[in-house]
């Protein structure tokens, strides 16, 4: 089973972003790396100058590189940008929205976790149009994952295995709103929270995380305990979503458990030490509330 590193979802500084990927290239036990700004098109210009060097370094390290597309495409410039990306990119595109499918026009591509693939028929539809890898929506229970993966052995299916779980995308920016700023003049305040802005209920219960136009779980997905079941059901890769912690070490733990060098419980203890104070969850996979851990 492969390990796949998802795109950085938060607004990190370009230097930190570049150095993060350089270290991933040099040290991390991951097979596939998806780069690119997928959350907010306003952030993209900061990372673009660093992108060629990052892709080059990852490729040289033997990683399979994918370029993620924007989750919510609405502005004309966002459409143009996506179109350019698809036409000119020499790495595989991971589409996160159906907008790109016309330009993709049957070429090999990946489908990200933000595209609604809930069943074997829609997975087959995408496969017929060139999808080689599909990261399934985090909301899917194991039974659905298993049915879909069994129906399409030619496609590599990924599940979301580590990180705060993306739950929603909006045209409105909640970081800007929380700072009482208009979206157009957001001053990029989401950069103050490299791991997202934590949100509690009125009764002080940890609940969600705000990341600009995106809303994520407060809990951190951890599917170490489920690796056996996922392997049995032909899941081809585990997606690790970058958080503000040592992701090289996170990948190492997942590799160890995959290779049988570490038990899931021991691995989870190590994960908890690396990314402290954030409870684990795997409820979605078990058909239970997403925040829960089984």
């Amino acid at each position, binding site marked *: 089973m492969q390990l796949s590193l998802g795109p950085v979802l938060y607004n990190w500084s370009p230097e930190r972003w570049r150095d993060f990927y350089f270290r991933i290239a040099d040290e991390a036990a991951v097979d596939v790396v998806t780069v690119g700004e997928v959350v907010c098109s306003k952030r993209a210009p900061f990372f673009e100058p660093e992108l060629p060097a990052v892709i080059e370094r990852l490729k040289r390290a033997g990683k399979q590189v994918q370029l993620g597309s924007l989750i919510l495409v609405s502005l004309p410039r966002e459409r143009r940008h996506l179109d350019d990306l698809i036409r000119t990119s020499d790495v595989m595109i991971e589409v996160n929205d159906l907008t790109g499918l016309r330009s993709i026009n049957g070429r090999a591509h990946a489908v990200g976790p933000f595209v609604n693939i809930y069943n074997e028929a829609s997975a087959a539809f995408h496969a017929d149009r060139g999808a080689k890898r599909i990261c399934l929506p985090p909301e899917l229970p194991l039974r659905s994952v298993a049915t879909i993966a069994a129906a399409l052995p030619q496609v590599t299916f990924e599940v979301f295995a580590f990180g705060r779980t993306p739950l929603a995308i909006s045209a*409105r920016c909640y970081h800007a*709103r929380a700072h009482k700023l*208009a*979206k157009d003049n957001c001053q990029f305040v989401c950069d103050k929270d490299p791991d997202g802005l934590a949100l509690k209920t009125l009764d002080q219960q940890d609940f969600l995380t705000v990341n600009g136009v995106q809303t994520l779980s407060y809990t951190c997905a951890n599917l170490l305990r489920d690796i056996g079941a996922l392997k049995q059901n032909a899941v081809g890769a585990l997606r690790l979503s970058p958080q503000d912690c040592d992701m090289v070490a996170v990948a190492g733990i997942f590799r160890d458990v995959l290779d049988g060098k570490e038990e899931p419980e021991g691995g989870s203890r190590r994960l908890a030490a690396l990314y402290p104070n954030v409870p684990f969850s795997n409820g979605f996979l078990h058909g239970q509330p997403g925040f829960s851990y089984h």
Partner: protein
Amino acid sequence: MSYPSSPTGESLPSIPPLLARVMRPLPLLPLEIVLARFMQRICRRNPQIFDRLGVHAGKRFGIKPTDLPFAFVIEASTQRPRLSVMRELPAALDARISSSLANLLALVEGRVDGDALMFSRQLVMEGDVEAVLALRNAIDDAGLDLAKEVADLFGPLGEPVRQALDAARNSLMKPNPLSQETRPWS
């Protein structure tokens, strides 16, 4: 008990407190017998209510008109729907619904929207919210016309009930001076 002014800035029709006090010592049994028979008749004539209730048929609903000195418990089971009248709602219920009598009657007749009553805080639900919604949707679809019959059941007290009901019918469609501003969306 009269209602405080509603959040929409209007006072809502309700049974006057004096009248409610007069009603307090009334024996409940005759009322129970009449209402139970009345409900069973409605259930017989509108069996589709039970289809809509689905798994919630048979649950115990407590209905508390906030302006009356008594309350009702309804068990809407298909075989034998039951209704009892009591001074206070018992603890063992699946769900409780409270609002003014006028609102409750208007709701039964589908003349007000249940969500609108909830948004304006004129209706309180507790317990099994899903069962309450199933009941409300089932009754809304049945298109019942209770106004006359219910007022008749109250005998000499029927007229104020009918007045309250008529007022309730119109109250929701009145202009709402406090909430005409629209909010920007950013």
